């Protein structure tokens, strides 16, 4: 059965028209019609406007992605509220951020204190407040999202931070958005959330990042390499070191989150968001060295099977190829990453680790297990 594309005359020529043919269904047309009623356009050309100021709720937003995203949204003129328990400060000056910028941001950012695990509270309090758009940056399970959807029946868009971890391991990469997902993955909560969103009458968008990096990363991705490089230690890499992974800069991810806001091309769509190029494990070690101005690192390959690391992780990446194509986001959203890998790692180094800040103390215990055995083998 062939699916048909309907082009809305209402869209002006400068808007990129939606091309998700097989997703065409009555719901989408309804959505467009609803929007038309909501947004009054004095000049006659009806337009789904991403630029009109919206009342935006970010679930989370004080840790990593949200820090950058909230700033972009505030700059665009939206009213932005962070829903957090209040454990971390709502606004913290970023390294490299000017006083003026920070002052402007902190005077405008709003806080809604609460625990999102308290579903009744979430439902009643959000219903009372009302929001146009929700960015769900820290949601893990579908049950966490239900009360939000229940509370906000007129929501314009629910933008969800999912994960490329939902993809089923493949023999022929890269991962495309249409690929099979793994219902048994440890990210299945994200998957179930995406399914919930799709099953409800809400305009949703899901973003699947791969590995995120950048200043203030709380996941020891680049930090893991920087610790070893700074200590002048060899970098232990499992197996061949030619496993291919992919890093995406947090600022590029934040930009992508902006690009989907109010974008008809993003309606009920999933997007992989990460860097334009992939990288081998060995290559990443070298790129981190370049970023921090360190000499070329000594890389030691080892077979993880030969060791018992207990509960500790000897390496911050999955020991397999893991990367996703960002072609869809590039063509449908007109988004493209600004940072290439070394530039992005340099940005991270200059604004974070290079200033003496990091999230996790260096722990070389697994390295020593690996290196100890290799030393023994060599002698």
């Amino acid at each position, binding site marked *: *059965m*062939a*699916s*048909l*594309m*309907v*082009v*809305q*005359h209402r869209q002006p*020529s400068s808007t*990129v*028209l*939606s*091309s*998700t*043919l*097989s997703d065409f269904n009555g719901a989408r047309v309804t959505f467009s019609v609803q929007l038309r009623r909501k947004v009054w356009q004095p000049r006659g050309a009806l337009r789904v406007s991403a630029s009109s100021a919206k009342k935006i709720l970010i679930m989370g937003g004080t840790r990593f992605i949200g820090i950058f995203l909230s700033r972009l949204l505030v700059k665009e003129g939206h009213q932005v509220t962070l829903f957090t328990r209040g454990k971390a400060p709502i606004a913290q000056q970023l390294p490299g951020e000017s006083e003026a910028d920070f002052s402007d941001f902190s005077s405008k950012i709003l806080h809604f204190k609460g625990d999102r695990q308290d579903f009744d509270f979430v439902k009643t309090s959000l219903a009372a407040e009302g929001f146009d758009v929700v960015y769900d940056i820290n949601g893990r399970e579908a049950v966490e999202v239900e009360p939000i959807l229940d509370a906000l029946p007129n929501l314009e868009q629910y933008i969800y931070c999912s994960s490329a971890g939902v993809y089923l391991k493949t*023999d*022929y*990469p*890269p991962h*495309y*958005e*249409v690929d099979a997902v793994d219902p048994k993955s440890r990210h299945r909560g994200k998957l179930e959330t995406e399914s919930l969103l799709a099953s409800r009458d809400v305009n949703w968008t899901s973003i699947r990042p791969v590995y995120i990096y950048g200043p203030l990363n709380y996941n020891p991705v680049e930090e893991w390499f920087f610790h070893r490089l700074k200590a002048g230690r060899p970098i232990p890499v499992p*197996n*061949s070191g*030619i*496993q*291919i992974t992919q890093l995406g800069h947090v600022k590029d991810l934040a930009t992508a989150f902006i690009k989907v806001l109010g974008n008809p*091309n993003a309606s009920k769509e999933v997007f992989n968001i990460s860097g334009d*190029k*992939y*990288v*081998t494990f*060995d*290559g*990443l070690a*070298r*790129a981190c060295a370049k970023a921090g101005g360190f000499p070329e690192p000594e890389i030691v390959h080892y077979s993880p099977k030969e060791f018992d690391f207990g509960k500790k992780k000897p390496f911050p990446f999955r020991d397999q*190829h893991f990367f996703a*194509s960002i*072609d*869809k986001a*590039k*063509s*449908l959203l007109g988004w493209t990453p600004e940072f290439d*890998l070394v530039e992005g790692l340099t940005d991270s180094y200059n604004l974070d680790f290079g200033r003496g800040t990091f999230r996790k103390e260096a722990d070389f215990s697994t390295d020593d297990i690996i290196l100890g055995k290799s030393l023994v083998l060599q002698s």
Partner: protein
Amino acid sequence: MNTAVASTSSSILSFSSLSSSPSSSSLSPLVRLSFSSSPRHSLSSSLSISPSFIALSSKTPKRAASSLSFTIKAEKKNVLVVNANSGGHAVIGFYFAKELLASGHSVTVLTVGEEASDKMKKPPFNRFSEIVSGGGKTVWGDPADIGKVLEGAAFDVVLDNNGKDLDAVRPVIDWSKSIGVKQFLFISSAGIYKQTDEPPHIEGDAVNGDAGHVGVEKYLSETFDNWSSFRPQYMIGSGNNKDCEEWFFDRIVRGRPVLIPGSGMQLSNISHVRDLSSMLTAAVEKPDAAKGNIFNCVSDRAVTLDGMAKLCAKAAGLPVEIVHYDPKALGVDARKAFPFRSMHFYAEPRAAKAILGWSGTSNLPEDLKERYEEYVKIGRDKKEIKFELDDKILAALKVPVTV
């Protein structure tokens, strides 16, 4: 400027396109719309007002058969394919010629050498009747003498699928220019990309300056107004002149281990040649878009070396034993022992998707099934094959081979 407009009540699509005058060398971009009935779709480009194109990928190999095609054809072109008489790329010209003929263009294939040569007894040359019955012309000769071989002929488009360096291609380029050919296409190679820590190879990445193909690309860019270069990797498909998947089938079918140098995690692009052909055809039908561009001529998925072995086994419905080895440690030349590069060799067809609105249909699991059927049909599974180098490696590894 093309516009695509549809009314919401009916589902009629109509196009208006401005064509430039027939004598000018540029044609308005072709808009091709096809609707795939497959639930799996990846849309690689959006419909925008200028330029407009939509590309859908279809799951089924025969794209035209399973989709409704509303295709506006460009003017009928007269295309010359200068084709190598052997090697892994030879089959490209064969598929391209047939696809162009099916699309209504005129095609002449100039194969290097002589029609009577033994080389012509091998595929795809032994199937050239398919080109002739499709309305194409097949001639033989030396490209260095192309002016004599094709005296008096006129062409709109020339594809050189033969030369690996400027010495071989220059005569064809110069002659094409002299007779007013409007578009020159060149089959280069993704092998010219410099090794990188950051795959994939994408158009614009650094290439090895002294590679022969690079010299050709450079000369083309200086000589021809409308030129495009296509950089392929490995391909499978009926009519292939060089073994690809057969190397794996040969071992799997005889219960022999598949010997893979290195970790087996190396990625490669193994595309069905129909994808290469469709990309070239897209360039012929969208010359303005293709102009001055380099295109990685590969499918949009990669496979690991181990993965290829497993897929071949699956296609054959047989088990496979993969044995990895370190060629250096064993003093073995991996290039002789194994048909693919033993490091990452992975390019993506980003330019074709973004600029030509092309999308690939290669589906290795399905395509290999077809390939295996043919492998058995021609009796190659029963053929006596010596595996001298394999045995040498296995002996060095002290791996028992159950015969």
